[in-house]
């Protein structure tokens, strides 16, 4: 009640009648709306947010304290994953695989050009395990990953957008052996890859873009005397932005 009283008092009337209050509230709301419209029209032509209209402030690289809205985009990814370790045919634990996925990116998170990406990926492949004790043991494998990444886009509003980022993920891998010779159970691995990426995005329009991207990850394994392996994904993605200004 105290708060309500003070708000009403600010309208300059010690005795407030309901009709007068409604009129004055309407006038104040109209004035605030005009002010907001004027600020928006002065902002650079960068995407506004539909999902989260809260304003954020740019602090780099121009230093302009420019209000900037967040917006979401969705991306479809395709890559080849290379492994910086011997392949399973030479006693290694992992082979190169194709990998596909989707992600959602929240742009302009907290500050301009910083984005938060949440992704899910699926990889699959087959191969043979050969070592001094295992001879051409064929297998099929697949992997699921969910990850979260922080990315920084170097430009905004330009057709070419270089970007970099870091990523952490949860991954589960499974492989099934095709053999009657060996006692080879289905094997699985749950691990937490961490890595970084760099890429270049080309924007056809503010809403549609394609990108080439390279990622490196360290994937902890902890088996057969191998602590982990480095992997690299080379690929690209198609991105569609929701709410980006045309």
């Amino acid at each position: 009640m105290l708060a309500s009283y003070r708000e009403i008092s600010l309208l300059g009337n010690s005795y407030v009648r309901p009709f007068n209050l409604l009129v004055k509230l309407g006038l104040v709301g109209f004035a605030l709306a005009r002010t907001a419209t004027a600020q928006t029209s002065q902002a650079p032509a960068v995407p506004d947010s539909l999902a989260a209209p809260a304003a954020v402030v740019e602090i780099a690289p121009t230093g302009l304290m420019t209000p900037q809205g967040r917006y979401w985009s969705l991306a479809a990814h395709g890559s080849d994953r290379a492994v910086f370790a011997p392949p399973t045919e030479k006693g290694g634990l992992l082979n190169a695989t194709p990998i596909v996925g989707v992600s959602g990116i929240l742009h302009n998170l907290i500050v301009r050009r910083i984005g938060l990406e949440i992704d899910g990926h699926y990889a699959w492949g087959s191969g043979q395990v050969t070592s001094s004790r295992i001879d051409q043991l064929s297998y099929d494998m697949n992997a699921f990953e969910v990850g979260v990444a922080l990315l920084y886009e170097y430009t905004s509003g330009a057709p070419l957008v270089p970007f970099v980022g870091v990523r952490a993920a949860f991954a589960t891998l499974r492989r099934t052996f095709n053999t009657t010779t060996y006692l080879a159970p289905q094997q699985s691995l749950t691990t937490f890859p961490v890595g970084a990426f760099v890429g270049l995005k080309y924007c056809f329009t503010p809403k549609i873009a394609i990108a080439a991207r390279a990622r490196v990850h360290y994937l902890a394994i902890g088996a057969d005397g191998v602590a982990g392996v480095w992997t690299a994904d080379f690929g690209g993605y198609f991105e569609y932005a929701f709410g980006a200004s045309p």
Partner: protein
Amino acid sequence: MNRRTALLALSLAGCGGNWSNNDIAYATAVPRRFLLQVPTIYERGADAGGGMILGQPSAARAAAATAALRYNALLTYLLSPLDVAVNPPTSRTTTSRIWGPFDDANNPGSQFWVDVSSDLADANAPLTWTLKTRGTSGTTWTAGSGTFQPSASAAFGTGSMDFALASVRPLDAGTYSEVQSLRLSYELAPDSHSALSMVESDPGGDSGWSPSGYGLFVRADNAIRWRFSAPYGDVASAQFEVGMLPTGAGVAVLSDPASATRIAVACWNQDGTVSYHAEGSDAGSGAVCPLIPSATN
């Protein structure tokens, strides 16, 4: 290191699961049971009786099938615990893998485990395994042990195993109580596998186990050569050299090991009926019968 740091380190290093090539390499120490047993298709006709007259069910085939059935059952009893190696190992060291301990379903309160060890860094090092059991009293026995020497082509090689049933008799007195031990050697090759085994039973006991042991050779097409000894006519322990094809046809050459003379040659059709039978030292070689897989083909 506080708890949060420990959890973070565990998350980064640690992974869960059983993703390992070496686990599979250790499991090669343990032979697949079906590779040492007579293929089950040759158990057909066991204990069916039979005769020697053309068109009748073959007695020789029945004897071969009966011996196979009994031999297979013993190996199933002894080797079944090793099947746990089809699962991921329970624990690992740099030179060993352990499966178990597991509860012994046949002996409540008892447990068993399989321990395989080898230096995998040495490509020529053999793999050794032991099967141990622990009774309700806490006493531990070594029920079986074996070695496997891989050949250049990894999964193949030669192996041997010993089961001392007498030592586990306090644990499982009622099963195969007449058997003292089983010694078995085997060879796994890309196009065939073979096993030689000897069942030692109680002295003087009428166990019915082949006194000369068992010899099995299995060709890639599942044709077999099967050797055992069993009573035949007046001969207490006739040597059976049997060749059988997956079609069901077969031949048996019987001899008396004491006199080193041939007793009989018997052949049977796909349906198990006698197609040829001759007795005496001039009974022939079985060349008139279906092809007998030899130890060299």
